[in-house]
């Protein structure tokens, strides 16, 4: 009836996967800081600059989110453009001449950092101090100005929201929204300096659409959003990253196979994240993967 080998025997060697042929992207030639660089069509100035080893500060940019280019700390000078342009989202074009470290660029980056740090508590933003030093930011020049200081919001067992640390980078909104989770529990509300990240009518998270995936926390660049455990350990002076070990493993729950990056301090799990570059999770998890490790500590 059937031709070929016994169906109970594995086929010894299969064909290599045939996927739709990938056209090699066209290359775009441009000049950054006087050096020629060739970048694939569709790449951003940021990516092209990285090719040259040029470090560009970013706050609202992440590889796993659609660029929103709102923080403006990555701006560069593009010859022929009246204004500076955001490196994170501006696509390369043939013949562009870009300056990433001109006086004009340094001035804007410095001022952006000063404007933020003078109104927001950036003490737990990991990259901020480094950027501020590099650009000589002196936020105290704007001291006594308006700030976004406000009480910490604690309305559930898993998250803490400290919007006094929020730079309004939109990352949490994107991660909760169409870039990953598609739950849309939070959005920007209000306008201008009074804009905030909020549920509808500032409803507590527990009454909102929130599904507690923690993907907003995963992308927050300032520590405004924090796991409750980390927040409490920090408050008690117990949080010590030098005593933490970071290990990748696979989530124990459903069969999707999400990579969990386990942060353990003194042999106890204190936090779980996921690598942004992993093709399965792209850094995002669900509530079980993100928080379902408590049983390990409780034994």
């Amino acid at each position, binding site marked *: 009836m059937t031709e070929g080998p016994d169906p109970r025997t594995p086929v010894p060697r299969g064909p290599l996967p045939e996927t739709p042929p990938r056209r090699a992207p066209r290359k775009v030639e441009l000049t950054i800081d006087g050096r020629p660089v060739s970048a694939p069509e569709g790449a951003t100035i940021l990516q092209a600059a990285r090719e040259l080893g040029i470090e560009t500060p970013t706050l609202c940019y992440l590889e796993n989110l659609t660029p929103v280019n709102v923080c403006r700390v990555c701006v560069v000078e593009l010859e022929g453009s009246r204004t500076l342009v955001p490196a994170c989202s501006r696509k390369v074009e043939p013949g562009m001449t870009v300056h990433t470290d001109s006086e004009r660029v340094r001035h804007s980056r410095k001022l952006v950092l000063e404007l933020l740090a003078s109104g927001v508590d950036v003490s737990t933003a990991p990259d901020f101090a480094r950027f501020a030093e590099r650009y000589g930011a002196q936020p105290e020049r704007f001291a006594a100005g308006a700030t976004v200081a406000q009480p910490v919001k604690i309305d559930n067992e898993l998250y803490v929201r400290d919007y006094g640390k929020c730079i*309004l980078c939109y990352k949490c909104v994107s991660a909760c929204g169409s870039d990953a989770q598609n739950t849309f529990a939070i959005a920007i509300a209000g*306008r201008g300096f009074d804009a905030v990240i909020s549920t509808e009518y500032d409803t507590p998270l527990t009454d909102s*659409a929130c599904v507690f995936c923690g993907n907003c926390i995963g992308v927050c660049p300032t520590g405004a959003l924090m796991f409750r455990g980390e927040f409490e350990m920090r408050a008690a002076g117990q949080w010590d990253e030098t005593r933490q070990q970071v290990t990748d493993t696979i989530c124990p729950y459903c069969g999707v196979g999400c990579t969990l990056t386990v942060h353990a301090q003194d042999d106890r799990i204190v936090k779980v994240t996921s690598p942004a570059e992993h093709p399965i999770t792209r850094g995002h998890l669900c509530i079980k993967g993100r928080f379902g490790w408590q049983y390990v500590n409780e034994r």
Partner: protein
Amino acid sequence: MDLRFTSAAASERERAAVDRAAGSQAPARDLLLPALQEIQRRIGWISPGALNYACRRLDVPPADGFGVASFYGLLSTAETGSIAVHVCDDLACRSESLIAGLERSGVPVRRSPCLGLCDRAPAALVTIAGEEPREIAVAPADASSVMRAVRGLPAAEPAAPIPQFGSAGLRLLRRAGQVDPESLDAYRASGGLLALRRARQIGPREVIREVRDARLAGRGGAAFPAADKWAAVAANPAPRYLVINADESEPGTFKDRVLMESDPFAVVEAAAIAAFATGCARIYFYIRGEYPLATERIRNAVDRMRHRGFLDGLDIEIRRGAGAYICGEETALFQSIEGYRGEPRSKPPFPAEAGLFRRPTLVNNVETLVNVPGILIEGGPAYARRGTERSTGTKLYCVSGDVERPGVYEFEFGITLRNLLRYSGCAIADLRGVLVGGAAGTFVTPDELDVPLTFEGLRAIGSALGSAVVMAFSRSRDMRGVLARIAHFFREESCGQCVPCRVGTVRQVEALKRGDTGLVKEVGRVMRDASICGLGQTASSAIESALARWPELMKEMR
């Protein structure tokens, strides 16, 4: 979408308001703002239950819907009474005593940025929510006229809407006050619809050629050649959209309102020509929310022209702004029509390529379009002979402030600022300065009055025509207060998206108050260099120009 809602439920009236706006159509995000506006009009504020119902109907996440509702100045997400009195406290109106008086008599006053009624300052807009919602613009406003409006009585319409009423040589304003703005027959009797007929005779390509020959430049502020924009849109794939930017909100600007109120058929005819020339099957009017009469007149003109078959093959939607200056920025305007917060997009891509609903879109200002019928009638080359080499045709100027006859003036490009001020009855000897181009414009001093009011003339003195605001300030004016009001305006109107503008506009207010010129300049520079859109990029323009011309102002401030 698997949306989740709080338990807040809508009242029957709230549901009816949403249903009225959302109709029986399938859920469409772009009906969100109309639905919220209808709730506001009928109920007076947007309750959690009403928002839930609107979001359910339109398949919008409630947090997202709240983000939209809380963005717009004319929408309230906190419970208020049904009556709101928006009193302009902006530059031309100087209404502090009026506000104080109204507050004393217990009227619910809300301070408003410029209401676009500077020709009849001071101005107020009274809104009365209910089953028969009313919106009454009152100007000039005093305690008794506002109280009349609060009781729901209509305000008197000015007999002659323009100072040049009856003058020969008016082109854009020739029908203003002369021709019944609600009658299509009167419009046709005064030469209306001939241009649309001609456009259909000569075809789209020729229409664009006439506009090119006319060297018509956009009147919205950027002075971009209109024909280039039209040709770019026409060359891109269908479906294409035409958006008429009638969200005139630059403080001191009211020319588009006057055009829409006094010659609405011309605006619609011009739009129909533009849509024909560029192959747009759908037109959106986006009219400033504070312009109830203009909205009504445009709606009437569209209805009557459609009824008589002049708009066959065209879908026309009229959308209203909801109190956000930023929505005059074209990409913010698209966001607003689509049902989102009015946050500008990054350019590129430009609207001709990816605009409204990410489709090729032609966006034109009202005044730009209203030039088009004349161009088709007399021909592009004839049109181009008026004005100067680089600024062709006639121009509307919005003159206000310390002048005897404020209003919209029409002159051929080339008139000097001095002559315009003289014409409007300004006491030049007593003049401290003139704000040209609006809050985003620049101040000029009495030494600079001989500048021709052309694109190139103003550029040569470091100024810009912008929205053609000409606001005069006499020596008696508190210029520090003027600058503080301008700074306050941008702080209030920044959308909040990008850091330079969101925080910079606040720091600008603070640095001005402290008299720190150095910081004002530094903040101005980062806003100019690094903001996403024109609002931030020009938010320090007028202030920095004042400090450059009158350095002593800062000393006075300290």
